[in-house]
């Protein structure tokens, strides 16, 4: 395995809700190599999304070490973590989470607002990202004028536009029909294979998981097995 871009060591995650403490992850250790496309599978409540949140720097572990792209995330404060996310992680959500009042191009430009690029550079980069995902002709359309598949492509373009180290996808095909889902998964595969993007994807769909290069199964906060699939 090449160098690990994601490394978790003995990670615990507990949520406290009122007087109740719920242990979601227990002593979890995991390495993901640069350039891997990993599918995280498991039943609801198994801790997949929590693990994804920890890897993406959206949440902090209760115990253990998390290193992503060479950075110990458990050592960063919220401001530094936000800057780190902007630089290293692109997020894709099940329901796309595009800004409804912005055009596709403006949505894709959002992460670039955090850079020093000029307006014209931001626009050019956003159009390049939209072209990469095959939806440049919809640049001026708003999310409500796009199909689910198209909206998810825009969301992927937004995740890619700042050239992140890692793509984190939470059920990216959960709201799509089979055909659109396959197109999106194929796109993710291309990004992984041809552009070398490391992708961690949570999915319930075994067919979606087949597009990944490795499948990880979780249950009750622990990894059950890891199967590396032949490319």
């Amino acid at each position, binding site marked *: 395995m090449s160098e690990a871009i994601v490394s978790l060591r003995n990670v615990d995650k507990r949520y406290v809700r009122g007087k109740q403490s719920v242990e979601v992850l227990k002593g979890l250790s995991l390495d993901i190599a640069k350039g891997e496309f990993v599918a995280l599978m498991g039943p609801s409540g198994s801790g997949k*999304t929590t693990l994804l*949140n920890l890897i*993406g720097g*959206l*949440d902090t572990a209760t115990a253990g070490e998390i290193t992503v792209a060479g950075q110990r995330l458990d050592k960063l404060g*919220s*401001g530094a973590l*936000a*800057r780190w*996310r*902007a*630089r290293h992680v*692109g*997020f894709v*959500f*099940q*329901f796309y*989470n595009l*800004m*409804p*009042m*912005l055009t596709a191009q*403006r949505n894709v430009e*959002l*992460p670039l*607002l*955090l850079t020093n690029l000029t*307006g014209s550079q*931001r626009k050019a980069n956003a159009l390049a990202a939209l072209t990469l995902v095959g939806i440049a002709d919809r640049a001026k359309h708003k999310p409500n004028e796009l199909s689910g598949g198209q909206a998810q492509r825009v969301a992927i373009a*937004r995740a890619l536009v700042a050239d992140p180290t890692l793509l984190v996808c*939470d*059920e990216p095909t959960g709201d799509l029909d089979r055909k659109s889902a396959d197109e999106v998964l194929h796109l993710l595969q291309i990004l992984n294979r041809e552009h070398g993007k490391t992708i961690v994807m949570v999915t319930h769909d075994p067919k979606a998981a087949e597009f990944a290069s490795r499948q990880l199964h979780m249950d009750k906060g622990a990894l059950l097995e890891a199967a590396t699939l032949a490319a």
Partner: protein
Amino acid sequence: MKYFPLLWATLWRKKTRTIFTLLSMIVAFLLFGILETVDYAFAHPSGGATGADKLITTNKYSITLALPFSYTQQIRSVPGVAEVTWISWFGAYYQESKNFIFALPVDTGTYFNLHKDEFIVSAEHMQAYRNTRTGALVSSKLMKKFGWKVGDKVPLHSTIWTQKKDGSLDWIFDIVGTFDAKDPTQASQQAQTLLFHYDLFDEGRSFGKGTVGWFEERVDDPTQSAATSSKIDALFANSSNETKTQPAKEFALAFIKQLGDIGFVLRAILGAVFFTLLFLTGNTMMQSVRERIPELAVLKTIGFGDGIVLGLVIGESLLLCLIAAAIGLGLSFLALPIIRLGLQGVELSPTALIPGFGAAVLLALIVGTPPALRAMRLNIVDALADKR
């Protein structure tokens, strides 16, 4: 500036709500601008140059208390006083009490000398006025209002002065001419004015003979107005009729203020307007942020820091308030000429609108900060949990 398109788009996310909120705020800022302008005018009576060389001398204790006519010569002897005239409040209306007439008994020679170059009166009308004891010179606007013509006899009902001959309150005047004011500001102030002979008034009234309501002076050097005022008042200090001399503008305002504490009333209304704006805008902002929790969470997810999110929400609030303030205050600026017509004797300045923008910024900060803090403290995982 790079965040402006995002702010602008966010503002118009719910077009109908934004339009109605803006309309409400525009009306509030329009009212704010008008009241602020009037309040400013009352608070800064000597702001303009008009009438800077005019002084008014009244009874020290009340304008309703008369002064002896004999003061005229003493005032005239004060160095710096170029002319003195005397006037009394006639308190008249035409036919019905709602038809108020600003009827003033004036001494023709001294009054028109003091106000030289302020009136436009034809030589023919002025001569007719001088020659007619019961003659009246009437503002052309007032003539038009009541459909009067030169040559008409008009009865005016005084609310104060009974006539010596029969005890009647009704005085009859012959309209012998019309006048207009050269200065447009003065024109609006003179719109209700009718001038008639002081001699007729003094000899015809059943009481108060030999007294005047107030004196009006023109000074040689307006910069010495305060010193001249002091000298006039010093002449009558410790007499049975002490005087109070002040710039004409302040006198006009004091006259209007007899209606009540105008400043307090205006500030109370301004306070109510501002308070209403607080609730209106605050509610809109809270609702707007509440609806956008998932969107704000997405912004934070892709790397927008707490400070940027805080700034975006406050920026949105500022944008909303400043747009409303610009339009509302702009409309109140356009309304100034109309307000001038209704507020004779008060000079309105657009400068008074500037605090309106300050109020808009203050309002934006007050209503924007609570939702901005909420957005800043948003827990990404919890906020996304509802909609991933």
